[in-house]
C-alpha cells in the first residue's frame, strides 16, 4: 500500500519534468523524442501499477506531509486509476504516431520544438485532473491541460487554426470562469475545497444553494464534455488541428469533463436531484449530435459530431444513478477514448493517403490500401455498436441499466440510444462507402504510408479489440469502481482517515 503511494505523484511529475527538459533541449530533436517517449512510457507503466494497487482500496497521498483537510491530496481510486491508465496508453500511442509523422515529413522548423513540451504538459494536466482529491486542484489541472490544448490547437498559427482556435479559447475561458466562480461560492458555503470534506459538508447546507452549486459545476464540466446546448464549439474547432492533436483531444479532453461530472454526481451531490435534467440533455446530445454527423461531408467533422453524440451515452449512464448504469458508463468511457482516438488517427492516415478528408474527393481506398481499410473498419464498427466489438458490449450494458431503471424517461432514452446507434452506423457506412468503396473522383496521390504511423494506429486498434476479450474482468472492475462510487463514505474515509475528522 505504501509502495503504491509513492507512485501516485509520478503521472503528474514525470511529464512535467519531461516538459521542462524537452524545452531546454529544443535544439536536439533526437533527445527530445527519446525523453518524451520515456516520460509517457513511465506514465503508462505507473498507470497500470496504480490500476492494480487501487483495486485493494483507494491510494491516498498527502502532498508535503500535510494531512487531508489542510494539505492537498492525490487520490487514486479505481475510477481514477482506470482513467489514468487508458489515457496514458492513448497519449503514448498518439505521441508515437505524431513522431512517425514528424520523421516522415522531415520537418525541423519551430513548431516541433514546442510540440513535445506542450504535449507533455497536456499529459500532466490530464493526470492532475484525474488524481486530484481537491476541487481547486482539479481546476488547476483543467487550466494546465487547457493552456496546453490552446497551444496545440493553434500549432503553426495558420489562418484556419487561429479562427477555430479563437472560438475554442473563448468557450473554454467561459467554462473556466464558471468553474472558478463555483469554487468561490463553494468555499463561501462550506469553508473547504477538499473533495472528501465537501462530500461531508455539502449535504448539510441549504438545498437551494446546493442546487445552484451543482448546476454551476455541471455547466462548467458540461461545456468541457460538450453536452448538447453547449457543444457547438467542438465540431468547429477540433477538425482544423493536426490529426494527432485532434485525436488526443477527442479521446481525452471531453472525457476529463465526463469524469468530473461523474465525481460531481456521485460524491458531491449524491442525491440525484438533477438526474431527470441530465437524462433529457443526454437524449438531446445523442440525437442532435448524430443528426449533425449525418449531414456532414467531411470525415473529420463527421467524426467530431459522432463524438458529441456519444457523450450523450455516457451522460445517460451517469443520470441513471444506478450501479450498473455507472459501471457501464465507466466502461463506455474506456471504450470511447480508445475508439474515437483510433478513428481520428486513421483519418489522419486517410488524409495522407487520399490527399483530403472531404468525402467527395476521396474514393477507392479499400483497393488502394486494404490495410488502411481494416484499420478504419474495426474501430468504426465498434463505434456504431456492432457485435462482438466493445461498442456493442457497452451499449448493451447501458440499455440493460436503462431497462432496469424502468422509468418512462429511461425507456425513452433506451429507444433514443438504439436510434442513435443506427444513425451512427448510417453515418459511418456513408463515410466508408464514400472513402473506401466509391470510384475515386480523381487520381489518388501516390504515397506510401510510413510504417511509424501505421504501427501506433494498429496498436490502438488492437487495444480496442482487446477490450472485447477482457470485457469480463474489465466489467467486473468497473462494477467494483461503480460500487465504491455509490458509497461516498468509502472515499471520505480513505482520504480523511477513520472517523473522518471535520
Amino acid at each position, binding site marked *: 500500500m505504501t509502495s503504491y503511494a509513492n507512485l501516485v505523484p509520478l503521472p503528474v511529475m514525470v511529464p512535467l519534468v519531461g516538459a521542462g527538459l524537452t524545452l531546454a533541449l529544443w535544439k536536439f530533436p533526437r533527445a527530445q523524442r527519446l525523453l518524451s517517449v520515456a516520460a509517457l512510457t513511465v506514465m503508462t507503466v505507473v498507470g497500470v501499477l496504480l490500476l492494480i494497487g487501487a483495486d485493494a482500496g483507494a491510494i491516498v497521498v498527502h502532498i508535503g506531509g500535510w494531512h487531508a483537510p489542510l494539505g492537498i491530496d492525490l487520490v487514486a481510486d479505481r475510477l481514477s486509476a482506470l482513467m489514468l491508465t487508458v489515457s496514458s496508453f492513448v497519449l503514448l500511442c498518439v505521441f508515437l504516431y505524431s513522431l512517425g509523422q514528424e520523421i516522415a515529413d522531415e520537418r525541423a522548423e519551430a513548431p516541433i520544438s514546442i510540440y513535445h513540451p506542450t504535449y507533455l504538459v497536456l499529459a500532466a494536466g490530464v493526470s492532475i485532473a484525474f488524481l486530484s482529491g481537491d476541487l*481547486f486542484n482539479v481546476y*488547476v489541472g483543467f*487550466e494546465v491541460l487547457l*493552456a496546453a490544448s*490552446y*497551444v496545440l490547437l*493553434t500549432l503553426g*498559427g495558420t*489562418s484556419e487554426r*487561429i*479562427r477555430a*482556435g*479563437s*472560438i475554442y*479559447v*473563448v468557450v473554454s*475561458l*467561459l467554462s*473556466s*470562469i464558471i468553474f*472558478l*466562480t463555483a*469554487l*468561490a*461560492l463553494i*468555499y*463561501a458555503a462550506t469553508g473547504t*475545497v477538499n473533495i472528501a470534506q465537501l462530500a461531508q459538508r455539502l449535504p448539510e447546507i441549504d438545498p437551494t444553494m446546493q442546487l445552484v452549486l451543482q448546476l454551476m459545476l455541471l455547466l462548467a464540466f458540461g461545456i468541457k464534455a460538450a453536452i448538447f446546448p453547449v457543444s*457547438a464549439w467542438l*465540431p*468547429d474547432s477540433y*477538425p482544423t488541428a493536426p490529426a494527432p492533436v485532434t485525436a488526443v483531444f477527442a479521446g481525452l479532453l471531453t472525457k476529463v469533463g465526463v469524469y468530473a461530472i461523474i465525481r460531481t454526481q456521485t460524491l458531491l451531490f449524491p442525491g440525484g436531484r438533477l438526474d431527470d435534467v441530465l437524462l433529457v440533455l443526454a437524449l438531446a446530445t445523442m440525437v442532435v449530435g448524430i443528426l449533425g454527423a449525418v*449531414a*456532414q*461531408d*467531411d470525415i473529420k*467533422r463527421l467524426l467530431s459530431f459522432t463524438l458529441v453524440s456519444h457523450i450523450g451515452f455516457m451522460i445517460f449512464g451517469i443520470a441513471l444513478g444506478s450501479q450498473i448504469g455507472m459501471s457501464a458508463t465507466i466502461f463506455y468511457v474506456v471504450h470511447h477514448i480508445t475508439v474515437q482516438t483510433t478513428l481520428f488517427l486513421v483519418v489522419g492516415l486517410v488524409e495522407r493517403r487520399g490527399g483530403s478528408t472531404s*468525402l*467527395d474527393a476521396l*474514393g*477507392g481506398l479499400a*483497393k*488502394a*490500401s486494404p490495410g488502411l481499410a481494416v484499420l478504419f473498419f474495426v474501430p468504426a464498427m465498434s463505434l456504431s455498436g456492432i457485435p462482438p466489438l466493445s461498442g456493442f458490449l457497452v451499449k448493451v450494458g447501458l440499455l440493460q441499466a436503462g431497462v432496469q431503471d424502468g422509468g418512462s424517461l429511461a425507456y425513452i432514452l433506451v429507444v433514443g440510444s438504439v436510434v442513435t446507434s443506427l444513425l451512427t452506423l448510417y453515418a459511418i457506412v*456513408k463515410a466508408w462507402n*464514400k472513402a473506401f*468503396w*466509391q*470510384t*475515386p*473522383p480523381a*487520381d*489518388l496521390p501516390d504515397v506510401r504510408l510510413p510504417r511509424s504511423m501505421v504501427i501506433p494506429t494498429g496498436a490502438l486498434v488492437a487495444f480496442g479489440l482487446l477490450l472485447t476479450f477482457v470485457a469480463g474482468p474489465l466489467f467486473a472492475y468497473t462494477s467494483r469502481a461503480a460500487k465504491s462510487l455509490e458509497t461516498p463514505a468509502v472515499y471520505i474515509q480513505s482520504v480523511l482517515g477513520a472517523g473522518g475528522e471535520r
Partner: protein
Amino acid sequence: MIETAPAAVLIVAIGAFFVSGVYLLLERSLTRVLIGFILLGNGANLLFLVASGRAGRAPIVGETPESEMSDPLPQAMVLTAIVITLGISAFVLAMAYRSWQLNGHDEVQDDLEDRRIARLAAQNVPVTHDTDVDDTSQTSLDDQAADVRDETGDDGPATHPAPDGPGDHPDGAGSSDDPQGARP
C-alpha cells in the same frame, strides 16, 4: 455595520465586474473578449475574498493571535487564479495579434463549414456527390439499376453512367481505367 461595510463594497464591485465582463465577452473582437475575461476573473477573485469572511491581519503564526487572522486559503487560491489568468491572457493577446496579422482584424468568426452545410440543406442539395450515381438525369431508379453493375467480378462501380440505356456495361473497362489497379 462597520464590520460588514468592506464586504458590501466588494460585493458591489463583484457585481460591476461580472456585468461588464459578461457584456464584453459577448463582443466579436477577441481583444474585448479578453478584457471581459480579465474583468470576470477579477470578479471571481474578489468573490474568493468575500468567501474568506471577515478581514483580519496577516495569518502568520507568532505574529498575529489566531482570532485576528484572516483566512489564508482563499488568498492562496486567488494568487493561483491570478497567475493562471495572466498566462492565458498572454496567450489570447498573442492569438489576437496573429489574427490581426493574418486577417486585418481580430474577430471571432462563425463556423464557416456549418454555414456551408446549412446553405446546402436550404437548397435541398445532397451534401455529397455520388460519382457512381447519375443524379442529373431524370431516369427512374429502375432504369439506373440496369446501369449500375454488380460489384462481383469487377473492380468497382462505373465512373460514368452508361448513356445508352439498359444493358451491361462494357466489361474490363473498370480495370483498365482504374488508376489504383496495380497498387498492392
